[in-house]
Structure formats: structure tokens, C-alpha cells
């Protein structure tokens, strides 16, 4: 593919900057607006890059699911609104999409899930926040209360995301990173990282309390909240193993809460 790449932006999520190139000043401005503090000036040491080819918008069928498959060593990613290819051997790829922020957001989520799987990390359906220098995750499906908890966060807590949390192993355990992947809060997370203190499985109830969770239930719950895009045997096996390593090292507890700010008294 030949592109006249005149605009370059590094979108740095999880300490893994991806250099995005586009020949559209308007699209570059849209990305700057969308990714805010996650945009860095391009540097020469960027190892991942994406060329964006803009095409006219078309009607999208809502039931067009995402597909991620490995073909001849490259990841082929398709959804109704984009087609992308990524070669993990070179770290380079391209996206064909219309000028909207949602398509590239989908591609970035997939790419990071692929990159993280090789490192023992993963993306998980969870809100996360940093308090007193430590990160806490709140996992649950839609409606479990991720956005509610994020809205109730006290001033001394920085919300990393209300929708998709980003976890990478580190020598002392795991680190949580802020992400621009927002849910109903419609606000990108703080671009911070912090050692992970605990993950809470959200359950709404009549009072605020924390319950212990058995390791098998913890593993099941985390697995059910992981973002799996690629139904690839090797990758699924890697993430599966990572989750068991994770629950052996990080406290997983059930947070039963009523939707008011007092729940944060338990998160310290």
C-alpha cells in the first residue's frame, strides 16, 4: 500500500506507543482530540506503526462481528466498519476505515490484546482507579456498576478507565495502566500506571462489604471478563495461563455495594 503519510501521532497506551500515520490533517486532529493525554510526539524508537487509509463512510450492519485471524503470519482484523492487517514480525500494519474515531479505537483494542498476550498481560472488562499509589480494578459485565463506581470516585482517586482495564505483569506483581477506552462515562482515563492492589468482582446489594473469593471462582470470573478477540489456539492458551498466574498473585474479592459514595471507604 502506498500512502502519502504527512501526519504522525504516537498513541501511547500501556507503555506501548503505536505510531499512527494519516494523510488527513482533519483525521489527525480528530485523533488528537479523541486520545488527549495518550497522544505523544512521534519518536524515532517507535516499534509499532499503523498507516490509516481513509475511505468514504458506508452503512454498517450492527450485527457485523469482529473477526481476528492469523494468515501467513499476519493478523487480519475485520469488522463492518474497518479492515486492518498487522504483521507482528515487523510491528507494522494498516487500517482501512472511514474518518471516525470508533474504528481505529476497535483496532487499537485488538492490537493491544494481541501484544499483551505475549507479555502475560490482558485487557479486561473492568473499571480501574488509582488511590494512595495503588490500583484497584472493578470487574463486571455491562450493568454491574463499573461506570457507577467510576462516577462515585472521590477526589483523591484517579479513574484509569470505566470500561476496559489494561494489565501487565511486572517484577512485583501486576501494573494497571490508564486507557482511553471509555464506557458510559464517555471520558478517557487518566494516563497513569500503578501497581495493582486488588481486583473486585462487582455485585450490587443492600450494603457495602467485601467477601473473599475462592481461587477457582476468581479464575472463572477473570476469564469471563477478559477481552478475547482472536480465537487462536496459541493465543487463547497464553491468556488462559496468564489468568491463572494472575489469580495466584493478586487478591480477587467480591465487592458488594450500594450505589453511593460510601463504597469507596472500603477501597483503600
Amino acid at each position, binding site marked *: 500500500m502506498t500512502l502519502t503519510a504527512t501526519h504522525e501521532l504516537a498513541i501511547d497506551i500501556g507503555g506501548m506507543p503505536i505510531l499512527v500515520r494519516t494523510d488527513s490533517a482533519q483525521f489527525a486532529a480528530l485523533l488528537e482530540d479523541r486520545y488527549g493525554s495518550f497522544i505523544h510526539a512521534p519518536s524515532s524508537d517507535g516499534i509499532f506503526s499503523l498507516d490509516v487509509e481513509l475511505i468514504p463512510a458506508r452503512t454498517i450492519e450492527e450485527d457485523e462481528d469482529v473477526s481476528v485471524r492469523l494468515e501467513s503470519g499476519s493478523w487480519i482484523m475485520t469488522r463492518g466498519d474497518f479492515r486492518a492487517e498487522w504483521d507482528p514480525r515487523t510491528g507494522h500494519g494498516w487500517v482501512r476505515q472511514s474518518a471516525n474515531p470508533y474504528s481505529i479505537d476497535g483496532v487499537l483494542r485488538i492490537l493491544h490484546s494481541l501484544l499483551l498476550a505475549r507479555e502475560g498481560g490482558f485487557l479486561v472488562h473492568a473499571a480501574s482507579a488509582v488511590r494512595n499509589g495503588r490500583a484497584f480494578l472493578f470487574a463486571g459485565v455491562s450493568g454491574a456498576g463499573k461506570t457507577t463506581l467510576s462516577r462515585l470516585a472521590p477526589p483523591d482517586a484517579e479513574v484509569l478507565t470505566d470500561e476496559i482495564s489494561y494489565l501487565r505483569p511486572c517484577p512485583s506483581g501486576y501494573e494497571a495502566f490508564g486507557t482511553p477506552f471509555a464506557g458510559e462515562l464517555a471520558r478517557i482515563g487518566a494516563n497513569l500506571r500503578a501497581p495493582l492492589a486488588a481486583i473486585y468482582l462487582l455485585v450490587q446489594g443492600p450494603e457495602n462489604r467485601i467477601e473473599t473469593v475462592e*481461587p*477457582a471462582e476468581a479464575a472463572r470470573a477473570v476469564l469471563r471478563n477478559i477481552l*478475547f478477540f482472536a*480465537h487462536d489456539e496459541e493465543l*487463547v*492458551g497464553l491468556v488462559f*495461563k496468564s489468568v491463572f498466574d494472575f489469580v495466584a498473585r493478586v487478591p480477587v474479592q467480591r465487592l458488594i455495594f450500594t450505589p453511593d459514595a460510601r463504597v469507596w471507604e472500603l477501597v483503600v
Partner: protein
Amino acid sequence: MATYVARSKQVAARMLGGEMMIMSPRDTTLFNLNEVGSAIWKFADGQTPLHEIVERLCAEFDVAPEVARQDAEAFIQEMAEHGIMQVSDRPIAAIANEAPPQEPK
């Protein structure tokens, strides 16, 4: 004709807290196997005929042969649909040896 079942080689499986958890690589469906399912999983070596697996289940779980057979067949069918088990009318290792080499991932 005998039926043979085998655990698929690439399947992610882990025993934790007495529970066997298996994830389908095909669609990432997560299965928690009960004691009987875990036993079938253990016996599904591709060499033991299904009727012998059923006999072992009857001995281990005090269940009627017909019930054990029906349960085992339903379980194996579901596992096979998710790419978690293979079913054949011949011992499975022999089939694996005949299979063409897979493209490396």
C-alpha cells in the same frame, strides 16, 4: 463399532480448587467440568474405547450403565462441537500420525 475420544492437544485446561476448567480455543467458551466430566476428560486418551470409559464411570460414580452412556455421549458431543475433544471410530493417535502437518502459528 467402537468409538474413541481424545482430548484436543491445544486446549487450555487447568485444575484449580478441585475444579477442572477448560476453554474452547474456537470460541473461548469456558467450561467447568463436574466430577463425571473431569473423569471423562481424564480417560479420553484416544486409546480407550468409549464403552470402557463408561464402565469406568459406572464403577467410580455408582451410576447405571445406560445413564452413564447417555451422559458421556452428550458431554463428548458438546466438547467436540467446541473443538475440545476429538471423536473417531479408530484410536486417535493413529489418526493424528496420519494427519498432514499443521501450518506453524
